[in-house]
């Protein structure tokens, strides 16, 4: 029930979006995502609802966070 999966938005139709979840396509509701979405954005999906637009720059930053933690650096 609590499995959150990121997917890429392929098509938007009103309050729903078709998204690609690592190869599986599914329509999800986007009315509580709390952000404007465009095709190509990534969303975190939860029980049929997108709950977060995942900013691209934060994904890149995640890799930096791993590196900092591994080397004992302070979180930036």
């Amino acid at each position: 029930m609590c499995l959150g999966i990121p997917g890429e938005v392929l098509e938007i139709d009103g309050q729903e979006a078709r998204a690609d979840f690592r190869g599986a396509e599914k329509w999800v509701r986007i009315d509580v995502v709390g952000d404007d979405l465009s095709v190509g954005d990534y969303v975190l999906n939860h029980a049929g609802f997108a709950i977060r637009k995942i900013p691209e720059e934060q994904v890149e930053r995640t890799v930096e966070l791993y590196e900092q933690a591994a080397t004992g650096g302070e979180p930036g």
Partner: protein
Amino acid sequence: MTGALEFRDPDRAGRLVDRLEALVADTGPLRVMHVCGSHEEAIAEFGLRSVLPEGLTVAMGPGCPVCVTDLPEVDEAVALAKAGHTVATYGDMVRVPGTESSLADASAAGANVRTVYSAGEAVDLAEELDREVVFFATGFETTAAPTATVLREGPPSNFSVLSAHKYVPPAMDVVAGHPDTRVDGFLAAGHAATITGTDPFEGVVERHDLPVVVGGFEPLDVLLGLVRLVEDVRDGTATVTNAYPRCVSDAGNPAAQAALWEVFERVPGEWRGIAEVPDATLRIREAYAGYDARRRFDIETPDDDRTTDCICGEIMAGRAGPEDCPLFGEECTPQNPVGACMVSDEGPCRITREYGGRR
């Protein structure tokens, strides 16, 4: 977008584990707790416990939504199904035993029980069917916000909700405050925090002087969260740290929160086997009373006479492990579960049974 491999890169994982080893050598043995079934699944699936330092215990807390749904709540759903209404719910809930039977048992005896993937699907079902459809709505913030969203839209009049939704942060308070539970810090659930933000954990930090790190669910996310948490324990820093910023912000998702709190209010309620938590059960507000199954129907449930040896509650409170239970793997198996912890994919007993024990 960066591929999943970057979140699972074995070289980085190895270096994060080395870092944990070095930290735990400094701190001495410590016990941290996660509060999310998906964290347990990630830890078990990727075998993380086998690579963690000896001295670091990662205990399971009350994070499996199916497991903390209280027995009388299951009984209510079963009673509604037996009374001839269609009961729609998430797949995991169907096999959870009630006092006398589960929804699966009721279905086998002719009741109409449907598995849905989302609150939206439950509404679709009500639109298709010319009968009462009750959505037995379980889960934490991440599923409660969608339930709230469909109620705000004015679903058909034959649709109602039996809410067993729960709100996580107060349960962390209860567990942290229990005299028999040692917790040196919490790894908080990233997806619930996607909705609520990190702010609700500030109170937990203040009241218990414990660090809380919000963590994600890829193997490297979990390791990163643990490194930050152990660093905080070492430094005696009781703060909230967001180690999952790609999905979680301080303030969370305001649109989802607006829906959640417009429809639900926090009331006292039992978390199965753990305790009555003062303000962590989500009840439908008066403004949406017309859709509240408890107000629409007169629900008669059997007396709660729990006599089983199942220690689900102790396990969910982090005071025991699955293998401490006399029923584990004997009377209680995934095929014939006695407790909810053996039913759900996120249940500690089910996960331990599937992926093996702690070490």
